Every structure is written in C-alpha cells, then in structure tokens.
C-alpha cells in the first residue's frame, strides 16, 4: 500500500520534473541568456555531478544537517514544553503573547548583528537562527492547541484525580499532538528556509555557504545546483517529520489521515 503510494509519487515527480526541465531548457535557449548568467540544465547537471563527486556536497550537507537538527530539535523541545505550560496559565500567556507577536514577524536575519555579538561566528549563529525560526511556529501552535483541548478530556482527568504534571503528560500532550504536528511541519519548512540565510552569517560551510560562495564566484550553475540540493533535502526533512508524526499517531492510536 505504502509502496504503491510511493511509486506513484515517484512517477508523478518524474513527469513533473521532466516538464520543468524542458521549460527551463526552453527559457535558456529562447531567452538567449549567457550561460554564466542563466545556466541551462545540462550545465547545472554537470555542476551537480562535480559537487557530488568531489565530496563538497557531502561535507556541506552534513554540516547543514547537523546544525539544522541541533537547532530544530532544541527549538521543538523548548517550545513544546513552554507551550504546554503557558497554554495552561492564561494570565501569564496574556503577558507573553504580545511580546511573541511583535518578535515573530521579525526576520531572524535582522537580528544577525546581535547574534554575532552574542554567539560569534561559526556553527552557533546558524543554529540560533534555526532555533528562532522553528521556535515560534511550534510555540504558537502548542499554546493554541492546549487552549482548545477538548473539555471532556480535562473533565475526565479531574474526575479521576489527575493533576498538574501528570495532567500535562498523560492528557494534554497526547491530546494536542495532532495539532502540534502541524506546527512541526511549518517549523521544519521555515527553519530550513532560514538555514541559507543563517549560513550567510560568517559561516564557512553548509549548503547556505555553498550558495553564497558559488554566487560570489559567479558560478550560477553551482548556485542552481545548491538550490536543488536545498529543495530536495528540505523535502526529505519534511517527510521525516511526517514519518515521526505517523509513528506517534500509530502509537497513540490515531487514524492516519
């Protein structure tokens, strides 16, 4: 069943990308762009092969992934824990909410002078930026889910004398998980998007750096190759979150959508 679904997805993806590449080639030819300025598919393909074969890709990918995982996981854990608590204390959330709402629309990149000040250059700023990007979506979806937890569950818990931490762990967390999962997906997207930006801040490695460096070297074929890698890796990360989600749902007995 899952196999079938996957093979169908692959066929569709194949058709989709073939069409895309044809259009791309067409634009490159008809537009008459200099190939240094708008590389045709063939050149990008060569670029991809070079990046793979000389190991550049693997190095940068590893670095990016390990930063991403660190930043994302810590953001998710902190945000869920905070969200569970804040969601149950409306008065405190009332005070914190306006701050969050003002901070959230600010691009993590805007903070970069301060991030450099506090966290220096290298891995940490990129991780911090991913943290910021992932933190708010998860926090907000957790808080709003906690505040909407079906009243029946709370009543059942009261009825059986389940309180405080036990209430959070046994009732609230599993009850809100399906709604948090949505936040997790949004966060994985946003955080991955900001990786590129994060790795522009004085990083010496990572996919974002790969792109910036290629751009500064006027190698737009490599920029395009980097974009493709980022896209694919982002897609895979999203699918991984999806797998985690359906794993939890299986343990916690939800029907898969």
């Amino acid at each position, binding site marked *: 069943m899952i196999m079938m679904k996957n093979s169908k997805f692959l066929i569709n993806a194949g058709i989709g990308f073939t069409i895309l590449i044809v259009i791309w080639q067409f634009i490159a030819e008809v537009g008459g762009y200099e190939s240094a300025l708008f590389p045709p598919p063939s050149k990008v393909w060569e670029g991809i092969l070079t990046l793979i074969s000389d190991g550049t890709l693997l190095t940068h990918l590893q670095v990016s992934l390990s930063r991403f995982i660190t930043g994302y996981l810590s953001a998710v854990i902190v945000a869920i824990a905070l969200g569970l608590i804040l969601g149950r204390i409306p008065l405190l959330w009332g005070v914190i909410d306006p701050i969050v709402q003002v901070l959230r629309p600010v691009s993590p990149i805007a903070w970069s002078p301060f991030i450099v000040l506090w966290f220096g250059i290298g891995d940490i700023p990129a991780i911090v930026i991913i943290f910021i990007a992932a933190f708010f979506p998860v926090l907000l979806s957790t808080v709003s889910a906690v505040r909407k937890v079906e009243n029946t569950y709370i009543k059942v818990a009261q009825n059986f004398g389940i309180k405080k931490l036990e209430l959070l762990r046994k009732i609230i967390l599993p009850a809100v998980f399906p709604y948090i999962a949505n936040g997790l997906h949004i966060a994985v997207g946003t955080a991955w998007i900001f990786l590129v930006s994060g790795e522009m801040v*004085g990083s010496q490695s990572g996919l974002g750096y790969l792109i910036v460096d290629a751009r500064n070297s006027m190698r737009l074929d490599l920029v395009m190759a980097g974009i493709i890698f980022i896209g694919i890796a982002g897609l895979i990360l999203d699918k991984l979150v999806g797998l985690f989600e359906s794993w939890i749902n299986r343990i916690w007995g939800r029907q898969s959508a």
Partner: protein
Amino acid sequence: NGSEEEKSGGNEKRTIKIGYLPITHAVPLFVEKELGKYENFDLELIKFGSWTELSDALNTGRIDGASMLITLAMKAKEQGIDVNAVALGHRDGNVVVVSKDISNVADLKGKSFAIPHKFSTQNVLLYQLLKQNGLKYEDVNVVELPPAEMPAALSEGRISGYVVAEPFGAVSVSLEKGKVLYQDKDIWENSIDCSLVLRSEFIEKEKELAQEFVNYYIEAGHFAEQKDAQVKDMLLNYMKVDQNVLDLSLEWISYDDLKINREDYEELASNLVEMGLFESPPAYEDFVDHSLIEKAK
C-alpha cells in the same frame, strides 16, 4: 569554521583569525597563508559573504582583523570601536565598467549605476568621476548591489555601469557585456581602498605576533606582484574564477606598495565628509598605525 578553541594557552600556537571577501583586493592575505612562512602563530582566513557580516564579526571581536574596505573600518572607529588600519590591501584595481552604449560619463546622466556599499572607496570614485565631468552625484541613480549581482544586472540592462572590487569588473568585460570606461588611477591617483585592519587590542597586547604577521603580509605583497602562474594558483584556492577573468583583473592592480599615505587618506576623508557620509572621520594619527609596516621594511 572553528571559532572555538580560542585561548587554549600553554604551548599551543596562537591562531590569528583574519576575515576576507574573495576578491583580488585581499590577495596578499592569500599569498601569506599559502607561503606559510610564519612560525609563531597559525593563520586562519575566514571567508565572509558580504562586507556587512565581515564588519559585524570584526567589531564584536570575533576575528582579530580583516582585509576590508577602509571606509567601513573608519566608520567603526568613528562609532568607538577600536580598530587600526595597518596596511593597504592593494593599490588601484578598481575599474568603472559600463555597458556598450555608454561612451562617456555624460551618458550616465539619469541612468542607474551600482556600487558595492555606501561607505566604500568605489562610491567616492564615482563621486569624483561625476564631479570631474561636470555632473552632480544626484544626476545618477546610485544603487547598492551585492558585487556578484552586478554583471547580471549590467547584462540585462538593469544598470548602465558599476564600479567594484575585482574580479567582478573583469567578468563583464570577458563576457563582452561591458567595457572599461575608466581605471581608478585615471580618476584619482593613489586612491586607497581595501586595507588590512586589525583590532587595537591585538596590536597592543600581542605586539610581536602582530609584527610577524605584518612582516609576512608585506612580503606576500611583493611576492604577489609577480602575478605569475604560482601566484595565480594560490589565488584560485580562495576565489573560483576563470583564468582569463583573473588575468584581466590582475592587470589592473598592484601589491608592491602597501603604505597608507597621509595625503591619500586625507583626500579620502575629506571626500567622505563632502559627500555627507561622515561627520568627523578619524584622524590619520588615531586610525592608521604605521609602526608595524615601518618595522617590516
């Protein structure tokens, strides 16, 4: 990467961290690192994606120094950050590149023209160029663009010209999308642009290391001036460009005299004030520290 293990003390060698952008203006740094003659320290060159990020790192003390636009360092000094320029990165090496349909400066009137940064020598060069040709700065629509985007913008006719560090000028020329209208020395003899800037605390507290570092820097400048195959090989480890673009870029630049002369500096400073970019640029004595380069001779 690896900004971590900072002060491991003991017998460990001190690592000096120097920031750079992959441009021909930082060539002495690349050569110094490649020659690797220094003994009492390790040299780590840290590549940045833009001037802004580089100066953030320098200002907050995450790196000990950088090869950077001298004007940015002056700005930092003006804001109270303790940095000193100790040597130039290069002489000349900026070209004004324009599209094919521009044949003289007057043609630029009303057109868009790109510079890499508001606080840059390139901006001053543009200002002077316009002034010398009887135009006002406002006659041109000046835009700040990341250097890497300039050749594309020129090629698509989004801008009519640009002045920027190399190799981005040579790219347009070799793609035959643009031509050289002026070299910088035709506009302003002895313009000063990128410099080696060090944090003052580094110069003061680790005088000997700083001295050794600058010694080899100057030596590297002389070595680079040969512009032979060996030098080009070294550069290609830091900037990925086509051979012919590199050749063209190197034609326009020199590395053998890296002193920051007072009169050149003061001309720069007065221009900056005139352009309204600075109120009180740091005085030559406060900002330029020539003690190191003098001893290096």
